[in-house]
């Protein structure tokens, strides 16, 4: 039977094919299970990445106030015009649009080119910046003519401004664009927001974390072309604004200090509360206007500032390293008294010079001071007294004393770039120079020359510790809102108000030094008479210093150059002054350093006097 055979064969073949189809179906099912069950998580994530976009919301940066609640760093709204091509160019061409816009706001050809390029490069629904930082006038005009410009809108951003401009620039610092380095050091996604600003120097940098705040987020649904289709408002996380911060500095003193410091080419001053450590004034001259980085860009000014050899961007109060000169002599007297080798009344005869080990050492006064005791050693700043003293007690004791008073180490003020300086000694010299410590080193160091380097803020701290009776006060810039001591009307402070430990100096020995410093300013014919004040019977104690930068060479001497004012500015002596006031009930310590100011007594003592006087006027 042909048919029967055919049917049989057909059935066999049909079963084979049916079986094949069944097996192939199993392959499909297996693949489906693999994709949709085993790999489901991976693909779910990829799918979410496709259509969910996180838009970051920038927090408002914390403001900075001074101790009198004057605003030092503020945010202002900045207005930008933005256009959306698909809406803006529905009825008019790009050229017509730009023409009519430029009738209201100024657009350079370069800006127009940039806008046209952006339109070409991006999708028709993207948002393109037309112009940023509009003036109020421009903004209101654009808004009034809204109908003429469909698809444009005003975007509000934030700009940082510094109302006190130059006077607080070094302490506050400034914010700037995010740099490659910022991105490396900081993984906060906020940095990816265009036009986001981060602290670059000063307080803005040191307290970046607190000032910045935390990001907010909006989750948006986008389609395959990137167009936002929906915003998931219920999943919006609002940004947490940065913390406002109050500083201890007083902008009135800052402004005045700038004025006083401007008498010199390059100078700095620190004024602090001797009990609380609150720094009321930290000023460095020349200064700069921090607004040039944000609201008032000025290329010429920028260039001038950066190329200046007076280093206007440097906060010399904490970054400037200077030999303390004679302001270091208090350390010598205290080391002597504490060692027991001398008393207040031990006298040394100054003949204007001293011969030691085949070398003749001079006093600054060639005629000599005659018999000098502890108090007069400071009053006259007699070098011979200290040469003899250091030969007797050794420099290591003096070094120990200097370290106790905060010299040669960072004060821990919350600003970056603070320098430590150095107090040399036997170990230091062996390690750093590979040489032994000679008596000559001691003689140089005891008068604050040689290898000693200090910062103005260290000198202020040293003075404060002398004035407050030997407490290890540390400078601070944070104003504790609960602490009203600085605002007290009466200058009464009991020792329980001091939260710092004693550094263990005999109060009597301190009183000798205090008397010496009083004499420096107030006794007749003393080195610091130009710092004399008498504000409602309140007096100042202090010490001047003049630190040698370079010797006048033999050649120059031969040319008849004797005066400091005849040699180039950058080789002249540094001038220093430290002081505290009021003498009877001390409250503020001050240090002033004028680079190449030639003379502490003539130049910096009056500057210290004026700033201190202003502080007393403001706070009593």
């Amino acid at each position, binding site marked *: 039977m042909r048919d029967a055979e055919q049917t049989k064969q057909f059935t066999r073949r049909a079963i084979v094919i*049916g079986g094949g189809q069944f097996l192939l179906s199993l392959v499909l099912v297996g693949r489906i299970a693999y994709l949709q069950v085993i790999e489901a998580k991976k693909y779910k994530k990829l799918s979410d990445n496709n259509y969910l976009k996180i838009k970051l919301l920038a927090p408002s940066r914390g403001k900075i106030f001074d101790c009198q609640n004057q605003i030092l760093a503020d945010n202002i709204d900045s207005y930008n015009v933005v256009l959306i091509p698909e809406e803006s160019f529905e009825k008019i061409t790009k050229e017509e649009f730009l023409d009519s816009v430029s009738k209201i706001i100024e657009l350079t050809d370069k800006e127009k080119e940039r806008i046209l390029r952006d339109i070409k490069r991006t999708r028709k629904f993207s948002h393109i910046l037309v112009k940023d930082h509009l003036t109020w006038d421009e903004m209101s005009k654009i808004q009034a003519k809204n109908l003429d410009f469909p698809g444009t809108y005003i975007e509000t951003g934030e700009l940082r401004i510094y109302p006190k401009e130059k006077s607080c620039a070094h302490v506050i610092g400034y914010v700037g664009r995010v740099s490659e380095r910022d991105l490396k050091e900081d993984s906060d996604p906020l940095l990816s927001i265009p036009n986001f600003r981060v602290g670059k120097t000063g307080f803005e940098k040191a307290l970046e974390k607190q000032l910045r705040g935390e990001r907010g987020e909006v989750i948006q649904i986008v389609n395959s072309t990137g167009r936002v289709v929906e915003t998931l408002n219920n999943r919006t996380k609002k940004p947490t604004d940065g913390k406002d911060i109050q500083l201890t500095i007083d902008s009135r003193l800052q402004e005045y200090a700038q004025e006083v410091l401007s008498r010199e080419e390059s100078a700095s001053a620190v004024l602090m509360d001797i009990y609380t450590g609150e720094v009321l004034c930290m000023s460095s001259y020349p200064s700069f206007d921090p607004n040039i980085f944000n609201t008032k860009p000025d290329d010429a000014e920028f260039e001038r500032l950066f190329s200046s050899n007076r280093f206007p961007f440097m906060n010399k109060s904490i970054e400037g390293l200077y030999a303390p000169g004679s302001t270091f002599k208090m350390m010598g007297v205290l080391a002597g008294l504490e060692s027991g080798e001398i008393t207040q009344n031990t006298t040394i005869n100054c003949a204007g010079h001293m011969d030691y080990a085949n070398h003749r050492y001079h006093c600054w006064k060639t005629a000599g001071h005659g018999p000098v005791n502890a108090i007069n050693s400071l009053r006259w700043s007699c070098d011979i007294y200290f040469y003899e003293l250091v030969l007797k007690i050794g420099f290591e004791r003096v070094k120990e004393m200097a370290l106790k008073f905060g010299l040669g180490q960072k004060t821990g003020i919350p600003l970056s770039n603070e320098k430590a300086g150095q107090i040399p000694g036997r170990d230091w010299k062996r390690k750093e120079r590979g040489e032994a410590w000679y008596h000559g080193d001691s003689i140089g160091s005891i008068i604050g020359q040689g290898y000693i380097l200090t910062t103005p803020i260290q000198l202020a701290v040293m003075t404060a510790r002398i004035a407050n009776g030997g407490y290890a006060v540390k400078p601070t810039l944070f104003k504790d809102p609960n602490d009203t001591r600085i605002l007290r009307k009466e200058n009464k402070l009991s020792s329980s108000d001091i939260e710092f430990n004693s550094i263990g100096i005999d109060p009597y020995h301190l009183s000798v030094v205090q008397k010496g410093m009083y004499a420096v300013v107030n006794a007749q014919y003393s080195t610091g008479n130009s710092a004399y004040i008498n504000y409602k019977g309140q007096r100042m104690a202090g010490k001047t210093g003049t630190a040698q930068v370079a010797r006048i060479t033999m050649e120059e001497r031969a040319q008849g150059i004797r005066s400091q004012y005849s040699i180039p500015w950058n080789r002249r002596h540094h001038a220093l002054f430290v002081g505290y006031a009021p003498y009877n009930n001390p409250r503020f310590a001050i240090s002033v350093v004028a680079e190449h100011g030639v003379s502490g007594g003539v130049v910096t003592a009056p500057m210290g006097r004026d700033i201190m006087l202003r502080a007393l006027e403001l706070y009593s």
Partner: protein
Amino acid sequence: MIRRSRYTFWGLEKLANVDWILFLLLFVVCSIGIAMLYSSGEAECHEVVCRNFGSWYPWAVSQMVKMLVGFIAMFIASLFSPKIFVKFAYVGYFAVLIVLIMVEISGDIGMGAQRWIEIGSFRFQPSELAKISLIVALARYFASYSISEINKLFYLIIPVGMVGLYMILVLIQPDLGTALMLSMSAGIMFCLAGVSWKKFAVVGIVILMAIPVAWEYVLLPYQKQRVMVFLNPDLDVSGDGYHITQSKIAMGSGGFFGKGYLKGSQSQLNFLPEKHTDFIFTIVAEEFGMLGCLLLIMLYLLIVFRCFKISLMVRSQFSKLLVMGIGANFFLFVFINISMVMGLLPVVGVPLPFISFGGTSLMVLLCSFGLVQSAYVHKDVLISGKGVYD
């Protein structure tokens, strides 16, 4: 048994005897297709915000009309006796051949290949028609010879020639996917007819050896590119690989239960390319998950199984070959399309039967099931050896 009556309504009483189970299965799958096309439909974007939640336009309604026409055609076809199809098998074959040649001369360019022909306002893809007319012609040819005759090489010259003519014309278009489909369904017909396994083995070896030659001389650059991307989708994630990558993301993210109807982010937000045509299975997978996929595949298998059963039921060899051939061809469509969107096969442009948008494919498929219905209705009709009358 067919109840014969002297008083007929032009034979319409035969409609009572169609396979209603098969009809129901087809209807359900077609309806799922309409639902998926609704989901892939794109609402017009107004102003800035647009998000589509499905739309009757532009595809679902158009497909519904074609579906209606297709079902009517199916019922009409089921009224005709298989004898008629036997009679017109070769005529049909040559008619399609002429149409394919016409396409080559004056066809429209669609998707970079000449696949369309226009008659008035009616556009259709003749290559879809070719698949069915080839099966019918081969069924008629093989049904007229005994197994011993079929296994003589001489008798295979004509059917191989028939397949070859179509394939060459389709390859010229160029439509590699359809050409492969044609060769595969023809292969199934040869197998069902009883061609010995030995011959298949020889052909298999020849094909394997021909592949490097084909790669060099036959495949066009874009076809090679597709195969390359299939072998390594990471090659081109934003270009050709984009399709398959996004398709896998859509499927995988659907998980077991799916994201819900009209809630597939990949499809609704247009991450899926060609989602209404070749890649429509990914919408099913994304919105209904593995559960939906399995259900749909089960429906497809039931249709194939129904054809299998009918082919064993009918008495004439022609009907057996025809029904089983149509069923296998249908399975091939399903298998190739789903494998393609899941990254198991290169993207060759085969639509998912009854679901993908495309009038020609839908109507040709429904007509082919009309032939199956006709075989079912006339299951006891015998067709004589040389295929004329019983």
